[in-house]
């Protein structure tokens, strides 16, 4: 997997579609504060995600991971900069860059299958076809036989599988995932990680994955972007390969390297908070 090096000064016209699936160019996000000032949540974020690449974002809480992901999703607009998908600017949310949320966000009034059918339904796919495709998608996540269950009858892990199946049903160009497994217990989490890894090989999906867990990031990604805070930005990039994953010592080395970057980002926050209190 070749990782594309992003730079802010690359003119937009050169953003050749085949090169980057997602190009984040100079994204800055400011929020208005209650006191009338502005809070800089993200500054000058540049990054390119190649087709079929699995990129993880890790970073301390509050560094802007969700904000960045929602900007890519089109749910928020950047104050400056832009995000391109296949060379075209993302202008709003849509099924080709669907988001999988931490809290599943399933519709409680719909059955499992009806939840998976939702994106096809709003896209105008006929009843029989979308049912058939929903069943296929449910099979992919190991939920065959649960199609007509109600959401509240499912465990948390099964709910997240349903959300995954619903995301796949969008046949997205890129799947954006915001800490999708952090609500799950350790065992469920492992199972869901395996499932995602398998789905990814099956669907050859491009994925941007936000996580708090360095181990999870190492396990799943091709590339890990470590974000720093105050203001939120990307501070380091690490490549991960299957070869590396096969060697326990190299994994430990990588984990230590990531943690040493993270520690540098966390310590100033703690010091600053201490000064405040």
């Amino acid at each position: 997997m070749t990782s594309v090096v992003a730079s802010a000064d690359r003119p937009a016209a050169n953003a050749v579609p085949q090169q980057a699936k997602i190009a984040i160019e100079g994204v800055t996000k400011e929020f208005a504060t209650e006191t009338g000032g502005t809070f800089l949540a993200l500054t000058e974020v540049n990054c390119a995600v190649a087709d079929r690449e699995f990129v993880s974002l890790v970073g301390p809480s509050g560094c802007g991971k969700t904000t960045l992901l929602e900007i890519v999703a089109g749910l928020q607009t950047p104050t400056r900069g832009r995000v391109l998908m296949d060379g075209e600017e993302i202008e709003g949310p849509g099924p080709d860059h669907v988001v999988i949320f931490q809290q599943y966000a399933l519709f409680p009034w719909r059955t499992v299958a009806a939840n998976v059918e939702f994106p096809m339904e709003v896209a105008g796919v006929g009843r029989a076809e979308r049912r058939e495709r929903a069943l296929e998608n449910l099979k992919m996540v190991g939920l065959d036989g649960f199609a007509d269950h109600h959401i509240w009858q499912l465990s948390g892990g099964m709910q997240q599988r349903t959300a995954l199946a619903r995301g796949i049903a969008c046949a997205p160009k890129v799947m954006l995932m915001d800490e999708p497994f952090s609500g799950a217990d350790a065992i469920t989490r492992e199972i869901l990680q395996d499932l995602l890894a398998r789905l990814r090989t099956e669907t050859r999906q491009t994925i941007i994955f936000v996580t708090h867990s360095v181990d999870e990031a190492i396990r799943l990604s091709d590339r890990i972007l470590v974000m720093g805070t105050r203001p939120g930005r990307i501070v380091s990039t690490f490549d991960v390969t299957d070869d590396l994953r096969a060697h326990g010592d190299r994994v430990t080395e990588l984990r230590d390297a990531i943690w040493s970057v993270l520690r540098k980002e966390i310590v100033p926050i703690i010091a600053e908070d201490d000064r405040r209190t």
Partner: protein
Amino acid sequence: MLQTDGRQTTGMHVGQTLDKARSRVWRPPFPGWKKPSGLLGVVLVSSLPIFSVFLLWEVVAQLNWVSASLLAPPSTALSVAVTYFTSGEIFPHLGSSLERGGIGLALAIAVGIPLGLIIGFVKSFSRALSPVIEFLRQLPPLAMLPVFLLFLGLGIRSQVAIVLWAALWPILLNTISGAQNVDVRLVKAARTLGAGRRHLFFKVALPSALPTTMTGIRLGASYAFLVLVAAEMIGADSGIGYLILNNQYIFKIPEMYAAILILAGFGIVLNYSLLWIEKVLIPWKGRG
């Protein structure tokens, strides 16, 4: 309301199992108390207080602690109530109360739900209309009766109008708040799944608002019920409310109490039917 929904609200905890979600904690009212088992036990326990009230009423009336011209014993009232049914005398009154109440409530639902959804969904609407709604809802329905009588005359039309007025506000306001308080996460999810504004309205806001709307309907129905009885006493020549008051005018005291009992039964049936409808229509309520 006569009975509140006792189901527990459970969040979407991860790993929440089927059994956990369904389990209900039962605490004894005092130590040593055993949980009533079986249908018979449940019926016994829940009917004990009401039975005591009837017993007290019976004793007070039978011992003539209160004059018979004021209070009839419940046994007499009940047997008169039964005769009301066997003779068929009650049906015209029940029928007209049901007709007025039913049409009024149906109209309130037909107006309140779509209007409430639109007002709640479109922010500029709710900002523009909320002062008007706040003002109108403050007008007590019975204060509006003279106005309705003036415009619509004595008869079914003004009775329906007052029921509509009473039931509309809780339905409308609950629907507005339901449509305004849609879970943002669901809206975000729907948008990333490709839902447009029309889909958000019909496939997210509408079902999201349904539980609160249903509470509004139950509230509206009980207001409508109260107001209808009062209105029938003032400006009608049939209906249960009319029957109660008329029996009092002509000193048919047992008949008056019989009519009151029938009214109470009517209210109970109404409430339980609405609870049942709610359960069928909104099975996900209170289950995250």
